[in-house]
């Protein structure tokens, strides 16, 4: 009971902080947080797939790219208002993810990882190949949209709040999805696919759908990134981006919605710190920080927090019986 009150309090405090932030920090710092929110959406999408559904993907940079290029091409070629490009990117990635999820059904674990990995690898090459649409290696330059008339915000502040709003909506949606019947089916498939099937869960449909939803989140994030950065280029969407998302999922905490925020903060800011510590070999520092982090909280930040909370409440109450005994 106290735990829930505490959590609501923390959430409210975080929201207040997030709203106050653009008026207290530099434009650059605020831009970094916009980036964090975008990452968080993508990371949540990937976590729905890996953490909740137990399917593995190293290919989410591909969906991020599809989202980004959808937005860029629609704005640049067809002059579509940017607001429309975000849901379009989401829907397009939902379909793409769902379709990719169907053949992926036959693959498990590592084999699925390779299939998605191949997808991620081929995307930059394919983007360069269809030069007429994508601008080849040069990419597409966009103009940053300003705030709608009557809202006294500069473009960066406007995009910050827009991203924050989309993030909140998507997080609440994910929470409702995962807390309900559908969520139980998704998790049941992860924990025991055969039992889930036996209980009447249409495993194939749910797995493909989860893939679609996961891709849709990542696609929306990709579209937002194209709008916020006002530039897309093929090499920004390489396999390393997929791996970065995976790092964020694990660092934040598998199967945790709030974990996505922590993971996004990590991938946005830790490389910068590493840069500050050593200009010569920043990635070596990043690697050391990453490994040290995994030692400290092997189940991610939220996993660590949950463990600490369990220990704390255990000291006050008798222990719950968590595991059954064996004969």
């Amino acid at each position: 009971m106290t735990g829930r009150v505490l959590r609501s309090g923390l959430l409210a405090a975080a929201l207040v902080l997030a709203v106050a932030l653009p008026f207290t920090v530099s434009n650059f710092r605020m831009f970094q947080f916009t980036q964090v929110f975008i990452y968080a959406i993508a990371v949540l999408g990937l976590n729905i797939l890996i953490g909740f559904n137990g399917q593995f993907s190293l290919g989410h940079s591909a969906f991020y790219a599809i989202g980004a290029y959808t937005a860029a091409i629609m704005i640049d070629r067809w002059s579509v208002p940017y607001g429309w490009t975000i849901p379009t990117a989401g829907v397009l990635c939902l379909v793409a993810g769902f379709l990719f999820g169907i053949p992926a059904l036959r693959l498990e674990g590592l084999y699925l990882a390779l299939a998605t990995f191949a997808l991620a690898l081929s995307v930059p090459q394919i983007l360069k190949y269809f030069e007429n649409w994508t601008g080849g290696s040069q990419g597409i330059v966009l103009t940053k949209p300003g705030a709608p008339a009557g809202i006294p915000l500069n473009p960066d502040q406007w995009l910050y709040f827009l991203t924050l709003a989309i993030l909140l909506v998507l997080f609440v949606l994910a929470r409702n999805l995962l807390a309900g019947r559908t969520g139980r089916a998704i998790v049941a498939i992860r924990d025991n696919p055969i039992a889930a099937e036996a209980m009447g869960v249409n495993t194939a449909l749910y797995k493909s759908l989860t893939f679609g939803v996961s891709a849709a989140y990542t696609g929306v994030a990709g579209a937002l990134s194209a709008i916020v950065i006002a530039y897309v280029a093929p090499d920004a969407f390489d396999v390393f981006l997929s791996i970065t998302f995976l790092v964020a999922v694990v660092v934040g905490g598998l199967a945790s919605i709030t974990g996505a925020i922590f993971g996004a903060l990590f991938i946005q800011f830790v490389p910068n710190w590493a840069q500050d510590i050593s200009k010569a070999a920043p990635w070596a520092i990043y690697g050391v920080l990453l490994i040290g982090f995994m030692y400290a909280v092997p189940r991610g930040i939220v996993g660590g927090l949950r463990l600490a909370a369990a220990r704390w409440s255990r000291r006050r109450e008798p222990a719950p019986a968590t595991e059954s005994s064996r004969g």
Partner: protein
Amino acid sequence: MAPLLEVRGLEAQYGWTKVLHGLTFSVEEGGITTILGANGAGKTTTLRAVCGMVRTRGEVTFDGRPIAGRATEDLVRLGIAHVPEGRGTFVNLTVEENLRLGAYARGGAGLGDDMARVFQYFPVLMERRRQTAGTLSGGEQQMLAVARGLMARPRLLLLDEPSLGLAPLVVREIFRIVRTINREQRVSVLLVEQNASLALRLASHAYLIETGRVVMSGPAAELRENETVRRAYLGY
């Protein structure tokens, strides 16, 4: 004569759940001792606790030496061979390789002689020695597991539910062989079993445990006559 294995106040837990609540029992040198109990009573955990495979508290002495808290890998070197629940067969290795692994801890000296000896007890393994263990029947795999344990030249053999999932005839055969081994090789045996009637016929001494505590103990013949044991565990 001091007992070969002596356990006092053994406690064990999985996570936060305590499974054993201060178990005390002993195994006589050269004897067969059995621990009986229903599903979930803590029989398997007892063996796992003796072998350092779960978090434990309490005193365990083997041959007068304290062994509580020793690493599982070391126990076989002291002379304790554990034939685990579910047989622990290396299913992708051949029968012969499984047996070689049994002798791993003592460096494999006299491997040929030992193998010849276990083949005497289990002729079927001799026939199948080049087959992968996974292709063996359940009974044959149980025989292989006991044989693997013997390859370590143990002084104490821990057997965890050797009857599990096997046909009655096969079980009787395996129990007969265990008795022969016990007599001929002077290997002491600690047997954990759900099949109380068979176990009580084989063993000289028996303990009955319920929810992690010893509720009754004594010579096997006595327990067999006991009214409660008969009703609850022997079913007549």
